[in-house]
């Protein structure tokens, strides 16, 4: 239950939602026109293709690139693959391996449409069974073990070596972490493939691979049982392989995914059409897999001023919400992001932080909000930094945030050391226990600084969304309205991988997702209904 510490103007909020919906629908129309190499590779993966060729190229890439180069991707990989399965009597994996050996699948004769359909349905069903099993297993474990109390303590591991990461993740869980995120190496988001196997090299993070996912999930299952608390696992569903990673996460029972509609465009200069299409398919998968997404609005404040541009965060939360609902995600799956990033030198900065956090809390009462710690204004002064994190912890418990990324005292120095994480967990535990019920104890003065700041943010958000709606989302991004970063619709990486769907395009995975998401009931931690709740 959210405490209504502030008065928030419901008319303005309704107006903002309406505008965001309109913005999202505009984009949605474009999304439906195209597919991407990443979407098709995802189909390949869910049809069971994995592994690499002799040169280390992942087989999903081998097969999709072949179809793409043949100019046949507009029909959808599923068609060609199923056709080959029927034609050759091989499994999808065997077909892919054959491709690696020189087989051209688009050159195979067209087979009986009914048998092709049959293969596609079988493969889809198998994939859905695995995902549903993982989802059910998660629901059971959560029900059996519980997940800790909110704000949930979320820490990252990022040694670059999955085997070190595993040790560090277990240690963190034993010291109170509820959620472990494995940060991805700096190099990965612009790779147009997902590396294969376990990895021990990486800078600023560890490669996201299916084997690494599995290893970490196993380690966390082990420690979850030991601790009697289900430890949730997060990775990054963004970059040039968004939907593939969603599929891998669904298969390996990740619990949350960083998964934003615009992050890749703004922060990795990925092409707009590519990202919009990829995010939509990836979110459908996350929706069905019961995964909670984390959006990345916090990042805006690392490049733009956190006070001046607070409203862009809230506006983007509205847009992310609508795009997510359109992809079939439910409100309980929307870890909308925001952050504690004001300059610590600002007089009454804490009051403004609380205003922002509480406003977002009240506007999205059902969302498991993701609250990010100070990063930009952290310095090498680890002692003061630890105190900045304390104030962040306080703001979080005071305003009832859900997913709480722990700030690290060494934020400005290195990806966290083992001990940094433990110090941060102790900091959070102390503050959150010591001020546990503070949010239920106080009221804000109706004409006070906090209330006024909240009103200002909401007002600016509506104005901003009016502007975005008028320009269209792509226009707004081109004009540098988000994060002070400009991106043009024609630019950006991965544009080549966007393909206009043919009239004969088929994607049985997407179709099945659409059916399932429309029909299934919702309900916390689990199932769906049509309302987005």
């Amino acid at each position, binding site marked *: 239950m959210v405490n209504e510490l502030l008065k928030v103007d419901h008319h303005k909020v309704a107006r903002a939602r309406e505008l965001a919906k309109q913005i999202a629908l505009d984009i949605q129309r474009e999304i439906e026109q195209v597919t991407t190499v990443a979407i098709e590779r995802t189909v390949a993966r869910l049809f069971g293709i994995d592994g690499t060729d002799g040169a280390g190229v992942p087989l999903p890439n081998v097969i999709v690139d072949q179809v793409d180069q043949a100019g046949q991707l507009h029909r959808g990989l599923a068609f060609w693959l199923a056709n080959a399965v029927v034609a050759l009597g091989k499994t999808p994996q065997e077909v892919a391996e054959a491709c690696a050996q020189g087989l051209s699948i688009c050159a195979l004769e067209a087979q009986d449409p009914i048998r092709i359909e049959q293969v596609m349905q079988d493969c889809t069903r198998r994939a859905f069974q695995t995902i549903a099993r993982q989802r059910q297993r998660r629901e059971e474990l959560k029900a059996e073990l519980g997940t800790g109390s909110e704000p949930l303590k979320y820490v990252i591991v990022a*040694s*670059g070596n999955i085997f070190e990461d595993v040790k560090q993740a277990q240690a963190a869980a034993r010291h109170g972490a509820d959620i472990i995120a494995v940060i991805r190496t700096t190099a990965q988001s612009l790779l147009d493939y997902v590396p294969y196997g376990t990895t021990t090299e990486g800078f600023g993070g560890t490669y996201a691979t299916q084997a690494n996912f599995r290893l970490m999930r196993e380690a966390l299952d082990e420690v979850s049982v030991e601790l009697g608390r289900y430890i949730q696992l997060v990775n990054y569903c963004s970059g040039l392989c968004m939907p593939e990673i969603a599929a891998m996460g669904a298969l390996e029972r990740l619990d949350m995914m960083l998964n934003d509609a615009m992050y890749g465009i703004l922060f990795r200069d990925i092409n707009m059409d590519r990202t919009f299409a990829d995010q939509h398919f990836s979110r459908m998968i996350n929706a069905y897999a019961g995964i909670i997404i984390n959006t990345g609005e916090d990042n805006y404040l690392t490049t733009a001023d956190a006070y001046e541009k607070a409203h862009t965060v809230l506006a983007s939360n509205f847009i992310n919400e609508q795009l997510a609902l359109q992809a079939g995600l439910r409100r309980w799956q929307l870890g909308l992001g925001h952050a504690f990033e004001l300059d610590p030198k600002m007089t009454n900065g804490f009051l403004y932080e609380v205003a922002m956090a509480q406003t977002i809390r009240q506007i999205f009462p059902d969302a498991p909000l993701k609250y990010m710690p100070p990063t930009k204004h952290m310095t090498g*002064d*680890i002692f003061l930094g630890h105190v900045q994190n304390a104030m962040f912890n306080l703001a979080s418990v005071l305003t009832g945030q859900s997913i709480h990324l722990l700030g690290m005292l060494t934020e400005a*120095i290195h990806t*966290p050391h083992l001990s940094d994480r433990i110090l941060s967990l102790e900091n959070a535990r102390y503050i959150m226990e010591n001020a546990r019920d503070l949010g239920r104890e106080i009221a804000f003065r109706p004409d006070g600084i906090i209330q006024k700041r909240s009103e200002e943010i909401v007002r600016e958000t509506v104005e901003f969304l009016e502007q975005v709606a008028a320009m269209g989302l792509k226009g707004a991004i081109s004009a540098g309205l988000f994060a002070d970063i400009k991106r043009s619709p024609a630019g950006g990486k991965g544009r080549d991988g966007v393909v206009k769907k043919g009239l004969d395009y088929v994607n049985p995975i997407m179709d099945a997702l659409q059916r399932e998401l429309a029909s299934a009931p919702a309900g916390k931690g689990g199932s769906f209904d049509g309302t987005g709740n």
Partner: protein
Amino acid sequence: MAQVIRPYGDSWGDGQVQLSFTLPLPAGPRAREAAKRLAAQMGLDNVQIVHSKDLQGFTFFILYGSCRHGVDVSALSHVDEEERSMSFEEINAFIEEQIGRRIVVVGACTGTDAHTVGLDAIMNMKGYQGEYGLERYPMFETYNLGSQVPNEALLQKAVEVHADAVLVSQVVTQKDIHIKNLTELVELAEAEGLRHRLIMVVGGPRIDRALAAELGFDAGFGPGTTARDVAAFLAREVARRLERGE
């Protein structure tokens, strides 16, 4: 076989340590260079000064670096792990059986030290962290002399009540006042011919077994000690001495 370990930051053998200190130099490139050289002398490679603060005439530094030094774990095997702990009941039963009389202890915060909370935590009824103090143990007879007790007075009382052990607390450690004070106590006990008759125990936040041994005490107890730890040690030690016929 040598098995050398080094500090661990986020991967095996990375040697990462965090360091902070103040140098009596005005802030600037020279102070930074001095800080780096100092760290290098300490055996740090890849020194990163992550923060420096001008304190007018002094500069405060925070550094990270990779420590070249390692410790051979196989050479630590002589370090005893702690003795198995005993419960309140076990200890009293042990004393009744093995010693057959109450153990007499005299405690004091000696010298000018007035920090009684730690000693009280060990000696008084109430105890500490849910553990009763020695006074509550039927098999202990305790005298807590309180604060700022001269070493002479402590030993005098020990003689007077035929104590098995003296328990000394030292909390103030500035300029090593505790070392001076504790050394004086041992010397005094020796001079008076009491040393071998008394089990001498010292405790305080900056005390550990190694330091206690170095200063000529039979045991030393640091932060987090409970009466049970001390009672178990005393019970075993008195029994050991009885056995050895002392």
